[in-house]
């Protein structure tokens, strides 16, 4: 453990948060929200100053081992959530600290679960900040850090590994920094395109920007109480398509930019992902046909809801809590499935299911031909046994955290569906669940303890469980403070 390195990264992350906070300040000034703008601006300057102060000493060339990467990531995300919550508390728009942290953690982890009962009462500046947290959290703040701050040594790959979604994290190009830049470039370009398309489609500029941030990070904070239900149908279609685009593995876009579309099309994960969307949409459309005015509306609602759940965004165009059990069940299953690895989406990830399914088939094969030697392959490449092991462990850890969280929540005495989907919707970073936490409701009725449990789930889900667990394991810090104390003693 390297305390100085952790402080350096933490400082940089704080400074970045401060700089990004200036964007809502501009927005607030445009809308004439002077009091709030001043509060946000003061926080921004404060974060930048403290951040630069902490990180003014660049550590000597150090190697970032995997555990350092995990701790730095977890620490950064916890800090982001808590610091980002402060303006909400001070402006008085979310007076409770727990609620404000819940809202911000939900933003950064791109969950989109809200405790706000009346979103439309919020000031523009706070709405913008809420949506911006989605955008920052979508691609990850450390990836941003790697793209803009030159870091010594090659071991910073361990930072990216800890933050990026998916079982295995690869690079497009030899350098981490170039990879991080490419990722953010694609991300930024897609976001800008979405803003433009939405503006052209007739959405107000402020709504377009906030919705695009929410879609890009696959977050799900709406700026209207009914999420997307009151927008025109063609806008709903556009947003649904963009949600699916942001749930695609970013390797896909890189390969297209690198003029290797042949390879891009061959990515099996993307194919499986699109197939799941198609099948679910068709099934749900047929299932809800008699509840809607015509097949076009059924298809639109089905497509939008499938897109919003599989990409773990969490917008809604209709109250799917009222849908038949088959449709609801499908949506809950999709919550766990999640988007592609290497996208901005959450959930368990399509590729993990792919690997697990192929391992299962191999297991079946080994009963039939016990001596057969077979390796699990994805896209024509054998999967490393290490990766197989980590995927298997992931499922177990996921299940454990899920069960433990649901157990704590069940003390509140709500119905099973509420308890179950509240945890599912937060650990998978979706947002709305079913029943009492359905698309038309929110999480404000839960107790403080339950909210903190869900905050943990959101962070654990976004960071793919392990970084947060490593962060909380005392063994990680063995010997970390030794140097510090002995220096003081001497």
């Amino acid at each position, binding site marked *: 453990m390297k305390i100085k390195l952790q402080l350096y990264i933490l400082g940089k992350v704080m400074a970045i948060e401060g700089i990004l906070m200036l964007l809502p300040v501009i927005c607030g000034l445009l809308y004439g929200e002077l009091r709030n703008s001043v509060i946000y601006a003061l926080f921004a300057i404060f974060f930048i100053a403290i951040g630069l102060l902490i990180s003014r000493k660049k550590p000597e060339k150090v190697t970032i081992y995997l555990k350092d990467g995990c701790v730095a990531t977890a620490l950064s995300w916890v800090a982001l959530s808590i610091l980002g919550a402060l303006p909400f508390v001070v402006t008085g728009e979310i007076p409770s600290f727990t609620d404000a942290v819940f809202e911000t953690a939900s933003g950064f982890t791109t969950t989109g679960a809200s405790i706000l009962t009346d979103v439309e009462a919020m000031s523009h500046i706070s709405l913008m900040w809420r949506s911006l947290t989605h955008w920052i959290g979508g691609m990850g703040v450390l990836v941003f850090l790697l793209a803009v701050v030159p870091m010594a*040594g*090659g*071991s*910073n*790959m361990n930072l990216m590994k800890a933050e990026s979604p998916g079982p295995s994290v690869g690079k497009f*190009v*030899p*350098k*981490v920094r170039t990879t991080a830049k490419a990722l953010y470039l694609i991300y930024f370009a897609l976001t800008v395109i979405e803003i433009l398309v939405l503006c052209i489609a007739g959405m107000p500029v402020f709504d377009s920007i906030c919705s695009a941030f929410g879609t890009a990070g696959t977050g799900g904070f709406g700026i209207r109480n009914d999420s997307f239900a009151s927008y025109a149908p063609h806008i709903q279609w556009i947003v649904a398509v963009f949600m699916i685009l942001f749930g695609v593995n970013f390797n896909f876009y890189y390969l297209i930019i690198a003029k290797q579309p042949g390879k891009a099309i061959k990515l099996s994960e993307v194919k499986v992902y699109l197939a799941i969307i198609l099948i679910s949409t068709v099934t749900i459309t047929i299932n809800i046909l008699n509840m809607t005015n015509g097949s076009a509306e059924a298809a639109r609602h089905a497509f939008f809801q499938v897109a919003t759940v599989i990409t773990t965004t969490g917008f809604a165009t209709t109250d799917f809590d009222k849908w038949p059990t088959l449709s609801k069940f499908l949506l809950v299953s999709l919550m766990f499935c999640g988007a592609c690895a290497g996208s901005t989406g959450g959930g368990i990830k399509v590729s993990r299911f792919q690997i697990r399914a192929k391992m299962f088939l191999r297991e079946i094969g080994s009963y039939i031909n016990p001596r057969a030697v077979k390796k699990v392959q994805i896209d024509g490449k054998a999967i490393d046994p290490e990766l197989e092991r980590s995927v298997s462990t992931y499922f177990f850890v996921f299940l454990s955290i899920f069960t433990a969280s649901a157990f704590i929540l069940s003390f509140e005495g709500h119905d099973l569906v509420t308890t179950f989907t509240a945890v599912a919707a937060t650990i998978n970073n979706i947002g709305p669940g079913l029943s009492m936490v359905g698309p038309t409701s929110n999480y404000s009725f839960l107790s403080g303890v339950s909210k903190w449990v869900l905050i943990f789930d959101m962070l654990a889900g976004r960071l793919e469980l392990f970084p947060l667990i490593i962060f909380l394991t005392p063994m990680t810090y063995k010997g970390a403070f030794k140097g510090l104390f002995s220096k003081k003693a001497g």
Partner: protein
Amino acid sequence: MAKKGLRIIVVGAGKVGDTLVNRLADEGHNLVIIDKNEERLTQLANLCDCMCITGSGASHEVLVEAGISDTDLFISVTESDELNLLCCTIAKQFNKNLSTIARVRNPDYISEVNYLRSKLGIEMIINPEYEAAVEASRLLFLPAALSVNSFAHGQAELVKIQIPEGNILDGKTIAYLGQNITNDILIVGVERGADLTIPNGSFELKSGDIISYISTRKTNFNFLKSIGFNTRSVKSSLIVGGGTCAYYLADLLIKSGIDVTIIEKDVHRCEDLCDLLPKATILKGDGTNESLLEEAGIKEVDSVIALTGLDEENIMLALHTKAVSTAKAITKINKITFTEAIESLKLGSVIYPKYITAERIISSARSRQAKIGSNIEVMYSLFSDRAEACEFKIKEASRVTGIMLKDLQLKPGVIISFIGRDGKIIIPTGSDQINIGDNVMVVTTSKGFTEISDILR
């Protein structure tokens, strides 16, 4: 401004590959590593900013995946000489502008290096064992020097010595040295403690300083003699371990008339060495056997060179030599990297073949990078990267040509170390001048020169 890194493919993630990749990544190049061993690649990828591909470096498909067509430099350092040559040959087919570097160790091929280079279009064939032997032999020919490196295609030498207590140079300025001792050498760097200075005429030397100077081989001996150094080469050498490196070294030493004794364990290898080196004394036995060493004359010889395959054995041998004899000890270390521990043992001269190899390849990459958008012909890095030596070819008249050097307003930390004119090396004095057609070697602590006129204020 930082220079744009080259795109480099390295095949083989072994000892040399590992060192090489880490160093090249630190210099900001874009690296792709190809190796068959996935575990080694994973280890490398975790700690180093590079992209790894599992597969054979001689495979067409793998090379395409690595992006061979827009690569600048291709380095093959696998265990097998033949595979290295094959990889380079195949890589060359994609891209005629590609520079290829192959590691070839087998003595059978070494006599054919020039043929291989011209026919296969390989830019550089590097032989770690041979390089190590050459470095060892330089130290044996001039035991007084800390290091001797050849420079400018072997025409000049960069010699490093430490000024001992009470030497005549102690307390003298560089100008005094030029006026009273010799004008044939030029001090390009003085290391005092942790500081490096590129000295001017008024710089005062002190005992304990480590000075680096440029000279030709002949003038070097005269200079060292005139300041009271022993310039005799060793007369006899005891080499422990009879591997490839030992063969190369023995060959070089015997050609210069030095008496060589080799101790080798394996009887078949002994017989081979007898055939290859008829003038050497070959002893069959274990080099760690104290009585055998005594019998071989460890107390009488001028130098003991530990070249066995085991680093630990080599280190023990060097320590033993220091304990029982006054001979100069040279230790070869292949694998282990406990640099601090090894330094604290004060073994004397230590040779690391993998660092020598990596250094050669890196300087080649540097020089290629420096050539992009500049007039630099060759570039060397000196004093552990704290200074650069750049060779410029003077093609046209400019602010530096036709003016006596003493009248040039040079930037601080810049020295014109030699001028190559008509195939001869001139160690310049203030009254020399740069002409069109010269090659000029500039040593400087400020980096990033692209034109010869950059040396001026």
